[in-house]
């Protein structure tokens, strides 16, 4: 039980992070310079009170810890259940030869798979834009941030990878947000269920649309270098 609370809380932290991240991305709609300024500002937040990179490092640590806890707990629960089933009944016995779902959504039943897609996507994303281990469409490491983004999404392959990843993350958040609210005990009756479900729709839609807006505009040439 406590594992699920840990997942709910870290999940909510990650949703908040995603919304903030998305907000930053949208700066590209104003101008490339604006986007670069935002990226710069993150590194020098509250300077000179705090030393350079201090806030960003703390921030990254928190996010990394949240991801780590979320993933470890998820794997732990899934593996525990799978092993138990396999142990007590045999995997083949557990599966129904015929199965029909009445209520549970596709997203709800595939949380572990959408989660794994996102998990694989995170290093790819960091190697591309943070560590620049993967360079798409440029070779100079000092290329401004906004140009690196533009070059990347002019590549349809990269666009497709991001599309799949964002679809997975939205599905994950769509059920995850609702589920976390339930697990934390905030669903108390019919009206709160309606509100929570509406919120999870909104958050999931915002994340998908907000993150895919800029890449789509780039891919279709509306935004270019």
């Amino acid at each position, binding site marked *: 039980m406590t594992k699920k609370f840990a997942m709910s809380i870290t999940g909510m932290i990650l949703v908040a992070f995603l919304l903030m991240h998305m907000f930053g991305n949208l700066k590209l709609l104003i101008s490339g310079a604006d986007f670069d300024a935002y990226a710069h500002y993150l590194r020098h937040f509250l300077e000179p009170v705090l030393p350079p990179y201090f806030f960003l490092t703390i921030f990254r640590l928190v996010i990394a810890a949240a991801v780590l806890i979320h993933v470890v707990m998820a794997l732990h629960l899934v593996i525990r259940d799978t092993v138990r089933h396999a142990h007590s009944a045999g995997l083949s016995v*557990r599966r129904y030869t015929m199965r029909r779902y*009445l209520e549970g*959504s596709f997203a709800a039943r595939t949380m572990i798979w959408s989660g794994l897609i996102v998990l694989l996507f995170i290093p790819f994303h960091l190697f591309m834009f943070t560590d620049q281990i993967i360079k798409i469409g440029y070779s100079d490491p000092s290329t401004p941030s906004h140009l690196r983004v533009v070059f990347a999404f002019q590549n349809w392959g990269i666009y497709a990878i991001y599309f799949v990843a964002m679809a997975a993350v939205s599905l994950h958040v769509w059920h995850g947000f609702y589920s976390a609210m339930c697990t934390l005990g905030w669903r108390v009756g019919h009206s709160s269920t309606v509100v929570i479900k509406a919120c999870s729709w909104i958050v999931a839609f915002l994340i998908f649309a907000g993150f895919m807006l800029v890449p789509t505009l780039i891919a279709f040439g509306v935004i270019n270098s």
Partner: protein
Amino acid sequence: MKLTLNIWRQANAESTGAMKTYQIDGISPDMSFLEMLDQLNEDLTEKNEEPVAFDSDCREGICGMCGVVINGTAHGRGVSPVRTTTCQLHMRWFKDGDTITIEPWKAGAFPVVKDLVVDRSALDHIIEAGGFVSVNTGAAPDAHATPISKFKADRAFDAATCIGCGACVAACPNGSAMLFTSAKVAHLANLPQGQPERKLRVKNMMAQHDAEGLGHCTNIGECAAVCPKGITLDSITQLNRDFIASLFSGVGKAQ
């Protein structure tokens, strides 16, 4: 009606089971699903084959003894227009010539005993861990000593209608008994008599739930969809809230 039945046959807990196909004829639409199985068993006995073992007792939808997965849904909820137990499902919801797939509850914590019969003692163990009010016979005050608001009493009742059939576990992709456990928690949490042990109860029952090898709840909702008594997911939220409260209350620590 003439039907083709695909039924899970398994000799005992140790052996591996498999689906087997049977043909049955002369089924009237007014028969209940279990009466259809009765007839199959009569046919099998006549042919000197071993009848299909399945559990059933009251056949009024209240004892919770019966329960099989029919065409992929527990108690055949996907076939019936209303909430139902297997015994209250009637053959009129099937068509002549249909193929019906019948399987036992399949969950890690419910080992198959034989054919369609499973061992649900995990659910009893959860109740034994705390699903009661500790009051000895004879120690009760007058029934009117504590008024209970009708609203609360009705909520307690809604949760208390659980029949312990295990359909929630069978339907849950994670094999969790959260709906069952939460029904008892919500029943007693809504009554003043349940208050003194409220936090310890939820802690102990959840610990037992996990120890029985039942899965975790990811709020999918299949359980509530098949529940013959209409226990809602609200009771799971009630359990969650009580559980969080119990984490900060210190109960059960010093024992």
